[in-house]
Every structure is written in structure tokens, then in C-alpha cells.
């Protein structure tokens, strides 16, 4: 077992090293791709490069992320939580397979080679979850605070994450009340974010300027550089008088999933986090393929739901179709001049549609799994939703 782990991690490292040694221009090429680099995570916007040590640093962060994923998988929380036990427990991948799926995912490799700063947000989220399933709720909140400080939107994961922590805590004696537990942890999260913000303000000097340049950038979406998401073209074409209104609508829409999913899946908080990561990959303001790669990384934790999914072929085809045609259409628009912006826009629509079908299918499969758990005699029967 130990050997397999080393083989997978070592091979992932060597593969990345080989890629940058054989194709030295690859990192810069990927850094320039709009699918990988968005205005908020672009490496070129941040720093001067000193190639190899920085690249190796990013590889190590990737391996750490994979390790956190391995821990989450080994905890078995996705199969058997406090209030829910999956029906098809035997259909699962072990931790190393889940980590390998993450490490050898081309989207992950591209993100890592492009030195995108989303890697750190990914780390924050994965470590928050791995600490939560490991019972270390304080570290989980600190990690989530770090991720939220970097990218703002992970703060939406707070409720499912604190429920996940509580599930673990409730199995031990003297469990506190849920409300008190949530308030305590919310305080902790705020403290960690405030601490990091305070530190940044000490460095930059001007608090409001710093806030508007960082979180204002996330909230108000002033930069409309193309990416794989739905916001950029919408707000390019939006009439000026309705811009603020639709910014509000889009953010509310993004936040609305938190309530809906948490209410329905309060017995499986880890599943809420998984599906929210899918929602973020589609609907956050500046999404990139790194967000999709995070969703695809946590999806194999629910390997036991795969047999219950209905539209896998269609979703996978749509995602493959858009990943292959996206770069081609972008080239036609920007470089060849033989296509216009609508070409790339259409592909981003297909991409978003593909992931949302996958997401909806996963949600359906999870509900079906819950139902089968309550009605063991009906396992495998045809179902309907009324």
C-alpha cells in the first residue's frame, strides 16, 4: 500500500518535471491560456519568474493537495457518515486511486504547470475538508479562512464544513449544541480572515484601497477578460443601467445553492461540499479549469453513486467536446480573425452545460442513494420524482 502511494506521487512529480524539461515553453504557453489563467489567478500578473524552483514548489503544492484528498478518501466520510450510510459501499476507489485520478488529470497538470494561484485556494479548501473529516475543526476553519482570504467564494462552504466538523464531534462524548458550535466556528473563521487581512493591511498600508482592489475585483467583476465561465460575455454585452442589478442576481444565484443543498443533504455535509465545488466551477465570476479539476478531484469520492447516474455519457461528451473545441475557437477569434467572440462564447455555454448536467446527475444519484437506504427492498427499482 505504501509502495503504491509512493509510486503514484513519484510518478506524478516525474511526469510534471518531464513535461517542463521536454517542453520548456509549456508553462508560459499555459500561463497565457484564458482557460487556465484568469485575471485573479494569473501568474504573469503577479511575479517575475525564476523557472525551476518555483515550478517545483507548485508541484509540491499539488502533491500536498493530493495527499489531503487521500486523507479525505481514507476517512470514509463519503460512504459512511454519522447520519447516512451508502447502499453500495463496496463500489469505491481507495485513497491512492482518488489521489492518482487528481494528479493525472490533465486539467490539474495544466493548472500546476501554469503556476496558477488557484492551486493555493484548492489547497485551502482540500485541507479544510481533510482536517474536518479528521476531527480537527480548528485547523479546518483556519484553512477555510485562508482559502476565503485568497478567493472570497470559499467562504460559502462554511455551513456544510461546520456541519461536517460537527458530525465528527457528535460521535464523541459531551457534544455541544449545534447552534453554539456553529457560532464558535464562525467566530474562528472571521478571526482567521481578519488576521490575514490585518497582516495584508500592514503590508499595503491602505485598507480600503486594498479591499476594493482585491475583493471588489471579485464582487464587481470589472475585468471582462474571457474565461470558461458565464459572467464575462454576459457583462460585456449587458446594458450599463442593469449591470449592478445582474451582478446582484448572479451572486445571489451562486449563494442560493448553499441553502438548497445544505437543507436537503444535511445528513451528508461532505456531499454538499462536493456539489458546491461543482457549482463554483460553473457559476463563480472568474472560473478556470482549475475549479473544474477540483470538482473532478472530489467526485471519485462518490464512486458508489456512479452506477445510479443517468446522463454520464452526455455530460462527459459535452465536457470533452468543449475542452477540445474551446482552444480552437478562441484561436479563431483572437488570432486567426476568422471567427468572432460568439464562437468561444458558445463553447463556454456548452462547457457550463456539460458540468451542470454532471452536477445535477450527481445530486439525483445521491438522492436516489438516500432513498434506497431508506427502502432497502426497492434497491435497483425504477424511480420517479414527484
Amino acid at each position: 500500500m505504501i509502495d503504491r502511494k509512493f509510486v503514484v506521487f513519484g510518478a506524478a512529480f516525474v511526469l510534471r518535471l518531464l513535461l517542463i524539461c521536454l517542453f520548456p515553453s509549456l508553462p508560459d504557453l499555459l500561463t497565457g491560456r484564458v482557460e487556465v489563467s484568469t485575471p485573479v489567478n494569473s501568474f504573469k500578473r503577479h511575479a517575475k519568474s525564476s523557472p525551476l524552483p518555483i515550478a517545483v514548489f507548485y508541484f509540491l503544492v499539488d502533491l500536498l493537495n493530493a495527499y489531503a484528498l487521500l486523507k479525505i478518501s481514507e476517512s470514509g466520510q463519503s460512504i459512511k457518515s454519522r447520519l447516512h450510510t451508502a447502499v453500495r459501499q463496496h463500489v469505491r476507489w481507495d485513497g491512492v486511486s482518488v489521489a492518482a485520478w487528481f494528479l493525472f488529470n490533465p486539467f490539474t497538470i495544466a493548472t500546476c504547470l501554469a503556476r496558477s494561484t488557484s492551486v493555493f485556494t484548492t489547497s485551502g479548501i482540500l485541507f479544510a475538508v481533510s482536517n474536518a473529516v479528521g476531527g480537527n475543526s480548528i485547523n479546518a476553519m483556519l484553512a477555510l479562512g485562508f482559502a476565503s482570504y485568497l478567493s472570497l467564494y470559499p467562504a460559502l462552504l462554511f455551513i456544510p464544513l461546520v456541519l461536517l466538523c460537527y458530525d465528527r464531534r457528535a460521535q464523541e462524548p459531551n457534544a455541544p449544541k449545534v447552534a453554539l458550535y456553529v457560532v464558535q466556528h464562525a467566530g474562528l473563521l472571521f478571526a482567521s480572515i481578519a488576521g490575514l487581512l490585518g497582516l495584508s493591511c500592514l503590508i499595503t498600508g491602505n485598507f480600503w484601497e486594498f479591499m476594493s482592489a482585491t475583493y471588489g475585483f471579485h464582487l464587481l467583476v470589472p475585468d471582462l477578460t474571457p474565461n470558461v465561465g458565464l459572467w464575462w460575455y454576459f457583462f460585456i454585452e449587458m446594458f450599463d443601467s442593469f449591470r449592478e442589478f445582474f451582478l446582484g442576481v448572479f451572486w445571489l444565484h451562486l449563494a442560493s445553492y448553499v441553502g438548497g443543498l445544505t437543507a436537503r443533504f444535511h445528513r451528508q455535509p461532505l456531499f454538499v461540499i462536493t456539489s458546491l465545488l461543482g457549482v463554483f466551477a460553473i457559476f463563480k465570476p472568474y472560473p478556470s479549469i482549475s475549479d473544474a479539476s477540483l470538482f473532478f478531484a472530489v467526485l471519485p469520492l462518490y464512486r458508489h453513486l456512479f452506477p445510479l447516474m443517468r446522463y454520464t455519457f452526455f455530460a462527459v461528451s459535452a465536457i470533452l467536446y468543449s475542452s477540445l473545441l474551446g482552444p480552437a475557437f478562441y484561436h479563431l477569434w483572437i488570432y486567426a480573425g476568422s471567427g468572432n467572440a460568439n464562437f468561444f462564447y458558445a463553447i463556454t455555454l456548452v462547457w457550463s452545460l456539460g458540468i451542470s448536467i454532471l452536477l445535477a446527475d450527481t445530486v439525483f444519484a445521491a438522492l436516489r442513494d438516500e432513498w434506497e437506504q431508506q427502502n432497502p427492498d426497492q434497491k435497483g427499482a425504477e424511480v420517479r420524482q414527484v
Partner: protein
Amino acid sequence: MTVLSLLSLPLVALLLSFCSSTVVASSDYHENLLLHPLPQSALLASFNFRSNTSQESFDQQHFRYLPRALGQILQHAQTKELHLRFTTGRWDAESWGPRPWNGSKEGGTGVELWAWIDAPNDDEAFAKWITLTQSLSGLFCASLNFVDSTRTTRPVVSFEPFGDHSEVDQLHLLHGTLPGEVVCTENLTPFLKLLPCKGKAGISSLLDGHKLFDAAWQSMSVDIQPVCSPEGDCVVQIEQTVDMVLDIDRSKRSRSNPIPRPVPNDELVCDTSKPYHSGDTCYPLGKTNDKAWSLGQVFGRNLDGICPLADTEGSHEESVCLQVPHERGVYISQGAQEIKKDDGFTRCFKLAPSTPFDLSIPQQTVNVEVPLDEPVLHAERTIVGNGQERGGMRIIFSNPSNASAVDFIYFETLPWFLRPYIHTLRATITGRDGVSRELPASKIVKETYYRPAIDRERGTQLELSLSVPAASTVTLTYDFEKAILRYTEYPPDANRGFNVAPAVIRIVDNVHHAPIYIRSTSLLLQLPVPDFSMPYNVIILTSTVIALAFGTIFNILIRRVVSLDQASALGATTLKGRIVSKVVAIQDRFRGKATKVE
């Protein structure tokens, strides 16, 4: 009433003429025209109009030569020194040599304005600057009102006041450019109206919009600054210049028949030394300087005497000067006097009052050429790279001197949607041997002043203090990214691209002390463009995708999962189920009746 006013008219005229005659004695208005034939059969015409008004009469709003409209704007906007430029075309330094006035009277392509404004702080200075640009916009019929915060910069080392300012003024330098402004006759008319003779007499009567804006390069300037004598007497000086480079052949085309026609065979000047030269093959020789021309032909107008308001006493009597070798014959109108200068190339003409003046030069082969200085520095700026996503800026400086290095300040303002990566700034140096070496930028750039852009608020301001060694060429490059804008932020001709203001180079010349200015050409920046016909479609399509995702997920979330049997059982209890069962029951009853009847 009308009779009275008619009667009083001559009196007013008499009073006016009396008034003017008394002041003419102490008049301080000079005008001057310098004609300088350049290589490639070009002709540089430099018009200069200068007048002084004492500071007291300026403060008391007693305007004479200084136009009242302009004076009041300056007082209202607390502007102490003003420089306004309208420029079109490109100065070809390779063939025309150094710029007239050492570049200090020219601007970048389009409109350029900079001013020193007296204000207690930056915000008030900016408010006054906006007042100034709005007023000048009306006065000069130019789009100066579009000089907003994104086009305004505050250069630190690139400009210094020409005038003498008092210590108590808190001066703020503001600088704005409109590289896309098309300078044309509607700007010339108000410009001429500022002159005392308003283009009716004197050298300004030569200025005709058709010829001026048909020139290969032209620059109009207005400079207002306080000038103080060592004794402390201050005057407000207004200086207006028009510099133009005309193509002599092109200007000589008659206005009624301006279509260029091929030169007849027998008038072609061919290079007979070419082996393939024959009756039907010709290698044309370059344009020569021995063409015949006259003022009337080139400018399309005659010079209507001298401006009676101009100071005709003393050394400024010669209002027209011409730079051709003395051996060349020049015919002038009767009544005018020719004065040849000692340098062998300059001759000036003293014009007779109220007599039209013309000057004509016959075709003549000359052996002596008017010497042309080598410019101190050649500079060129281009956008490199392909695609509408990112690009690079390349600036080439070449120092033609074999002896000394040249130190200068490079100043550029970039629009906010061009996002430069200053950390990618690289320098390459090429010697006369043609071998280029990459240098760390710090070897060439001695000082940097960089103010990054803020989206939709201000542009990038970059000032570099550079030094180019003797006999070498330095190439600076940096990368930039192009932003994509909201569709309302694009101009109607979005695919043409956006104008990027010319860079300004200020050479600190230790020999001449007066700075030399060079401006690069303006650039066209291609940005990625969305489909402008699509706003409704995009809103509808994106909303559909969002609605699909939202609808599917929440539809799944809020419904119960049941087996097929349960579903049909449940179906019976719903409203729809009950209606369906009623309908079936009624059908059954009718069927039942039918069978009974049978």
C-alpha cells in the same frame, strides 16, 4: 436713431484708428515666416506670431494683442502657463533632419495640451484643468472636453515651465493628449482669429486650410507664458506658430484640377546609368531641389502686404526669410527689399506695406546645398506581436553621434486597457558592427517613474531616464495585455483599433541648454471585440443556461424520490389524478349506457 448711429460710425472709426495709432508706437507684436526647402522637394514653412501684454493690463483684463476669449479662460482656470498643439502627419527625420524649433513647438499626432495651474491641491488643480479643457474645447472647436482623468497625466520630469513664475504660485502640471483627434480647418479658423490681423493681412494671409491640412506634416501651437525681465517687469507672452512641410509638386497642382496624372514620357527624369535604360524603361531619379516654385503656387494665395499692427521698427522688419544658397536666383514683387545674410544661405525680405508680395524661384541647378544637421537622436515606437490578446511595445533609439552619449527622458502614457508588464522590460544594444547584445534594463535606464493604471480611472504613466551610448542603437521591449471592454466602451469603429498617444522624448542637451523634444508617431491598438449585434441574444442564452442548471438542480432537490408503483398510487391522490379518474369514469358510464341500448 438709425441716422444718429450712422452719423456716429465715422466718429467711432476715427476714434478707433486714433487709439490704435497711439498704441502702435509701443506695439509689441511680431510675425515672421521662414521658408526652408528640404530634400525630396519638400518645403518647410514656419510661421511665427508673437506678442506681449504687460502683466498689469492682463490682470486688469485690458486685452489688446492677447485675445480676450483666451485671456479670460486663463484667468478663470487660474492657468499660468499654457501649451496647446494641433498636429497631423509625421516628421520624416531621416530625410528632413532636426525638427523646427528643436521640437519645442510641436505636439504628438492629434491634440496635445499641457498647462501649469495654480491651485492649493491636486484635486482643485484637476477641477480647474477640466474647466480649462472644456473652455478650450469650445474655443478651438476641438474635442478637448474628452480629456478626462483617463487621459490626463502629471509628468514629473518630462516638462519644465518655459515662463518665469513667481514663487508664491503653487503650480501643478497637467498634461493631456487626444491622439485620435482629426485636426482640420475648423481648428485653423479659431486659431487665425486669435491673431491680431486675423489672417487678413501679413503672413497669416497665406494660411489656407486646403493647403495646410494637405501638408505631409503640420503643427499648430499656442503658447502662453509669463516672461520677466531681470528688472522684474513681467509680460504675458503669447506665441502662435504654424509649421508645415509641403510637397512642392503636390501643392502646385491647381485646385480646380487636383487629380494627379502620370508624368509625360518626355518629362520623366531617368537614371541613364542603368543597363536596362531605354526608350520604354526608366528608373526614376529621386526628387531634386531645383524645382521652380512661387509662394502663390505653393500656398494657393498671395501674401497681402504686412500686418499693420506688427512692429516694423528695428530688427524685426524682415518678416519673410528664405533659406536657399545665395547663388540661386529669386524673383520678388516690386517694392520689397532683399537682404542677404552672411551665412551664405539665408536671405530675408522687407515687405512694402499694403502691397501684395510674391516670391518665385526658377528652376536652376545648384551645386551648393543648404547644410542639414543630423538629429541628436532617432526614435521609433511600434507595437509588435500578433493576435488581439496580448502584444509588445518596441521602442528603438539610435544615437547617430560617434562621440558622445545622449541622455534623455522618455515619457509615455498608455490607456488603461493596455496593461503593460513592466517586469518584462528588456533592453538590447546594437553597435555599428551590427551585433546585438541583451543588457539588463538597469544599464540603460537610469531612473524610472511609473504610475500604474487603474481600470476606467487613469492610464499608465511611464517616465524613463535613459542614456544611449555613442554610435549605438538601443531597443527597449516590454509585453502588454489587451483588456476586453464593455460593449458600450467601444467606439463606433471598434475594429479600427484604439489610438495610443505618442511618446515624448526630452533630450537634455548640455550644449544648447534648451531641451530638444522628439515625439514618436501615435499607435493603433487592436483590442478583442465582442459581437455588437448580440446583447439580447447573449443575455437570453446565458440566462437560459443558468435557468437550466438552476431549474434542474432545484427540481431534483425539492421533489421526493418514489418507485414507479408508488408514483402511480400517488398519482391517484393528486388533483390531476382525480380529474383523470373522473374523466375515465364518465367515459366508462357512457360506454356502459351504449352497451345497454344494444
